[in-house]
């Protein structure tokens, strides 16, 4: 399991795959926003928390079809299925690798990108924390969606259609937490709710994803 995890991390870092790409995508989304909405500093600061969460979420989503796609095409996934490692662990290892190469860098970069949107660093800290707690859920849900759309050719659109509704609760609580911090309010349990969603996803989704993988590989 650890070997699979390191293999996935190394692959995505070295082969020019998801690693920098998600981050660059996130940056571009953040840069495009002021062009669409005007350069007014107050407006930008007001909508920055939601924008940054949305950007991170989309970056996470767009990189999630690569989690299983390549391995499915070249047959690695079938080998993994016949190995003694249960598919639940395969799913967990791959999601963890995805999180380490997209979720973690996105969370760390978010406060810095926030400066572009006139978001002060203190709020940026809360943003970083909320993303750190929330991106595991995003990775897990994304790779769950990837297991569902494995066999579909050009499944990218379908994947977003399936995954985006599942992202709603995480997004709501994430944006709530950062908005509360921006208004100087107490964090009223939003961060805990994000954590709860992430932990719940870790507990439940492996079994469903393994079921979907088995259906796809039979």
């Amino acid at each position, binding site marked *: 399991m650890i070997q699979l995890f390191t293999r996935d991390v190394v692959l995505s870092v070295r082969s020019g795959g998801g690693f920098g790409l998600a981050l660059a995508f996130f940056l571009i989304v953040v840069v495009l926003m002021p062009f669409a909405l005007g350069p007014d500093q107050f407006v930008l600061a007001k909508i920055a928390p939601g924008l940054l969460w949305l950007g991170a979420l989309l970056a996470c989503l767009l990189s999630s079809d690569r989690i299983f796609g390549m391995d499915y095409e070249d047959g690695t996934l079938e080998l993994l299925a016949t190995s003694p490692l249960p598919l639940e662990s395969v799913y967990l290892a791959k999601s963890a690798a995805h999180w380490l190469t997209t979720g973690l860098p996105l969370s760390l970069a978010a406060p810095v990108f926030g400066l572009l949107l006139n978001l002060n660093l203190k709020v940026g800290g809360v943003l970083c924390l909320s993303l750190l707690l929330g991106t595991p859920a995003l990775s897990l849900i994304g790779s*769950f969606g990837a297991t*569902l*759309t494995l*066999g*579909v050719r050009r*499944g990218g659109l*379908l994947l977003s*259609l*399936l995954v*985006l*509704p*599942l992202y*709603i*609760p995480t997004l*709501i*609580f994430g944006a*709530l937490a950062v908005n509360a911090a921006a208004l100087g309010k107490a964090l009223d349990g*939003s961060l805990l*709710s994000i954590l709860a*969603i992430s932990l719940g996803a870790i507990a*439940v*989704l492996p079994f*469903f994803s393994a*079921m*979907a993988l*088995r*259906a*796809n590989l*039979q």
Partner: protein
Amino acid sequence: MRTILGMKYFWPYFWKLANPKVFMRWSGLCLPWLIALTVLCLGTGLIWGFFLTPDDARQGSTVKIIYLHVPSAFIAINGYFVMVLGSLFWLVRRQHVSVLVAKASAPIGMTMTVIALTTGAIWGQPMWGTYWVWDPRLTSFLILFLFYIGYVALWAAIENQDKVADLTSVLALVGAVFAVLSRYAVLFWNQGLHQGTTVTVADGVNQKNISSIFFQPLLLSMIGFGLLFLTLLLVGTRTEIRAQRLQVLEGLEKLK
């Protein structure tokens, strides 16, 4: 469990419906009666509601949209529930009829969601002054609609029937968890404009929120919508079963 429910004799017969042949025979027998009952209930309920009830003191005749809005919203939620149950039974018992029931339930529920949203918007324009607000109830219905779309789209995307049945069932189960989660998450996110539930089961016939002049036809049209759902569900499932048979026959033909 069976004896506790007092349905010792019901469940064995219920599970026999998982045999497509038995299902086709029974649904074929029930269908004409169901259609007749649906027309009766829905016709009476709607005509009674639309033409024979007085206008509301403040809302005028717009109040009458309730006879479409409430029943369709009721079916929209229960359609998802049927979908989840069908999927669960498929994953546990591997009987094709149950997953086909789930498949047939999705488009009906989706349509009902659209009807509920549309009638709500039409009522909202004169009453709230806007077609749409991001109110928790409205928002969670929109989210429910998105979940329906995802489910239907996944069915359409994959050819292999057993595989797609497994995948959509998994999606329906996970989707149900997240739909409920979203339902409560939006409560934190925005304060509501939509009134609370008008019709509660616990309240029975002594409804406090609604005058009985309006309630009786409403109850009738809710029953009518329930029967309509059941009818459409049976028709849809029968179509799916026939489509599967056709596929098998075509496969056999190719083998020759």
